[in-house]
């Protein structure tokens, strides 16, 4: 797929991958073997009928292809961009055993992007206008991230009235505040959300689940089912000295300022952000890559990713890691953070890292990093971004004492149906599993939505 050249894109926030043309899509779709037993579909958490939609592309029936995808996936333009396809659908593609697998993600993106401007209602339901068939039944979703939007999209297409309550001022959850514009343009998310609103979904922003509205309130207001998809937003820190110095940020803060607050357009937009010249990012996942690549685009002279294992062991998607390296992000693997150092005014000036090496394999077979005694390094930096994961956000959980939690503080939910310890209250996504991918949250949303539909229809 064509991309913006690395040296150009490192200076802008426009999307990196440019998307297929019709010719390219037809060529790629034509490679699909249309297997009798499609392993790709099994590898997809929402089980898209992949060979079905690819067959429609081959027939040049893009509306048909979109309808096939939308049967199971409410956010195809998003998934086509941010899913880890290499480990899911494409990872299972039989062609991949000998050749390149079919570029399923890129085809999905192509279909969704082509479709986007059209009438969502007609494509999904076959009707010009979506009248709520069962407006005597209503469902509430708390949070407007991938899992909730999946529930809303699915139930709305079945004619059930859905209200989504979002705490921030813009729907999309992590798709808006977390994933940067250059990887997932906000207009794409806005379009997906608009398509959902066209299906009759009511989205209320600035409503904080557990504060502005509680589960108990929604039950009293007669919602037949409630889905909790509030994510696991609370950022983790490293618990090393100097972590609260000025210049040390959580990836969530940094990305929220830049993405949700559009700090890249400051002072056109009012949200400010710190402009580090020498930036260090801690962590090795997709969020770390996003933060590092964002810092580069915000004008940093140098950006390094510090990770305590090896580069191969980084949990980030390979494509993201490669994009980051191409854009000039340095990788300092086998370095564990020990301390942040500040000046007398409390500003970050450097950080100390402990050099590591890989030890013997542990019980899991994975080689854990061990400290190289006495080998430390001081890295000068005026900004550090910590991207080492999240914890469950306490707001809704504290307001809902009846909700059973597991020992890590996440919501206990039935793996098949998503139902929690409270009847007809469902949960899915990061607030159940801990931080995971957009698509796995959507998979959980879909399972819950199917169960809710089964009970209500």
């Amino acid at each position, binding site marked *: 797929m064509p991309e913006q050249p690395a040296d150009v894109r490192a200076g802008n926030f426009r999307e990196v991958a440019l998307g297929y043309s019709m010719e390219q899509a037809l060529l790629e779709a034509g490679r699909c073997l249309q297997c009798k037993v499609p392993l790709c579909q099994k590898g997809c958490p929402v089980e898209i009928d992949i060979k079905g939609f690819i067959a429609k592309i081959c027939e040049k029936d893009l509306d048909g292809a979109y309808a096939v995808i939308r049967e199971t996936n409410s956010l195809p333009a998003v998934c086509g961009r941010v899913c880890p396809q290499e480990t899911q659908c494409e990872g299972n593609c039989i062609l991949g055993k000998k050749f390149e697998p079919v570029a399923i993600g890129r085809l999905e993106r192509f279909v969704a992007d082509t479709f986007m401007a059209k009438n969502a209602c007609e494509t999904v339901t076959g009707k010009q206008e979506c009248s709520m068939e069962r407006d005597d039944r209503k469902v509430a979703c708390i949070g407007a991230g991938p899992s909730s939007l999946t529930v809303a999209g699915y139930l709305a297409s079945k004619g059930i009235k859905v209200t989504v309550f979002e705490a921030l*001022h813009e729907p999309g959850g992590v798709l808006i505040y977390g994933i940067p514009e250059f990887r997932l343009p906000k207009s794409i998310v806005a379009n997906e959300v608009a398509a959902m609103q066209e299906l009759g979904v009511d989205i209320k922003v600035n409503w904080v689940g557990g504060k*502005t*509205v509680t589960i108990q309130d929604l039950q009293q207001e007669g919602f037949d089912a409630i889905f909790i998809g509030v994510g696991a937003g609370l*950022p983790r820190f490293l618990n090393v000295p100097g972590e609260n110095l*000025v210049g040390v940020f*959580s990836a969530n*803060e940094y990305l929220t300022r830049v993405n949700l*607050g559009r700090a890249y357009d400051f002072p056109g937009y*009012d949200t400010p952000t710190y402009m580090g010249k020498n930036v260090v990012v801690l962590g090795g996942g997709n969020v770390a890559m996003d933060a590092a690549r964002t810092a580069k685009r915000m004008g940093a002279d140098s950006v390094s990713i510090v990770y305590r294992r090896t580069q191969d062991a980084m949990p980030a998607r390979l494509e993201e890691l490669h994009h980051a390296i191409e854009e000039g992000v340095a990788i300092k693997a086998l370095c564990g953070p020990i301390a942040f150092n500040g000046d007398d005014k409390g500003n970050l000036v450097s950080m100390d890292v402990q050099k590591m090496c890989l030890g013997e394999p542990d019980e899991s077979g994975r080689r854990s990093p061990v400290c190289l005694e006495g080998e430390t390094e001081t890295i000068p930096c005026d900004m550090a971004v910590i991207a080492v994961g999240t914890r469950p956000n306490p*707001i809704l959980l504290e307001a809902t004492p009846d909700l059973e939690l597991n020992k890590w503080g996440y919501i206990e939910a039935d793996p098949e149906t998503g139902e929690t310890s409270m009847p007809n209250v469902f949960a899915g996504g990061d607030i159940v599993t801990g931080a995971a991918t957009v698509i796995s949250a959507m998979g959980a949303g879909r399972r819950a939505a199917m169960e809710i539909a089964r009970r209500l229809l």
Partner: protein
Amino acid sequence: MAYKILQKQELIPGQTSLLVIDAPQIASKAKPGNFVILRIDEKGERVPLTIADKDPEAGTITIVFLVVGKSSAQLNALQQGDEILDVCGPLGKPTHIEKHDTVICVGGGTGIAAMHHIAKGHHEAGNHVVAIIGARSKDLLLFECELDGFCPEVLVATDDGSVGHKGFVTDLLQKRLEEDKSVGEVVAIGPVPMMEAVARVTKPFGVKTTVSLNSIMVDGIGMCGACRCTVGGETKFACVDGPEFDGQKVDFNELKARLWQFRDQEQESMEHYKKECTCGKH
């Protein structure tokens, strides 16, 4: 849905204003100590402001703000009938209100407005509330009458002595704590140096001291950690763990440093705004 300004009052012209905002859902849930995050328009930043009062029947909340930078200047340019794009809340843990014989509520500057809601909460719980309020001079004093409405005692300090005691609120607090053994808790809201000074004064008396931290926030819902502060050696998030904390345990130096983080950009934003404003007039 935008949020309509039903009433605007310039408490100190050009400097401090009060807005009564139509926000029924927030008003029905707001408790003393809660705050809201508002965004004036599409390009605005998310601004945290303490709820100074609420009227659940009328469906309104009251906020009081000091004009310090672009966003507050812009907010101050709005008039009755204008709308604010986003108001989100109520956020933060409500004030923990216990039954004490006497509670002293100390407020400084704009903090007096926030303190007012908390003092009211203590009053409604049956506590004898002594309000100690301070400002640089008489003209900058807020909410004296409102506090008079339910506080049996309102003690005033001004830096220039234009009204009440000439000096600091901490002088009055010190004297009171020496004379009155019935004080179960001291609550302080205002500029960081004032809250720090209050905690220093109360320490030898061993009286419970609550301060409300005005950290920089972005989302206000525990998502970003911008508002983190060190309390008793542990990192806490002011937005979900607070904003009220034990004043004896707060690392005030760190709080001060973190409050200055965006000073340069705040100035840039303000200059940009002033320029825009002048352009509009020509």
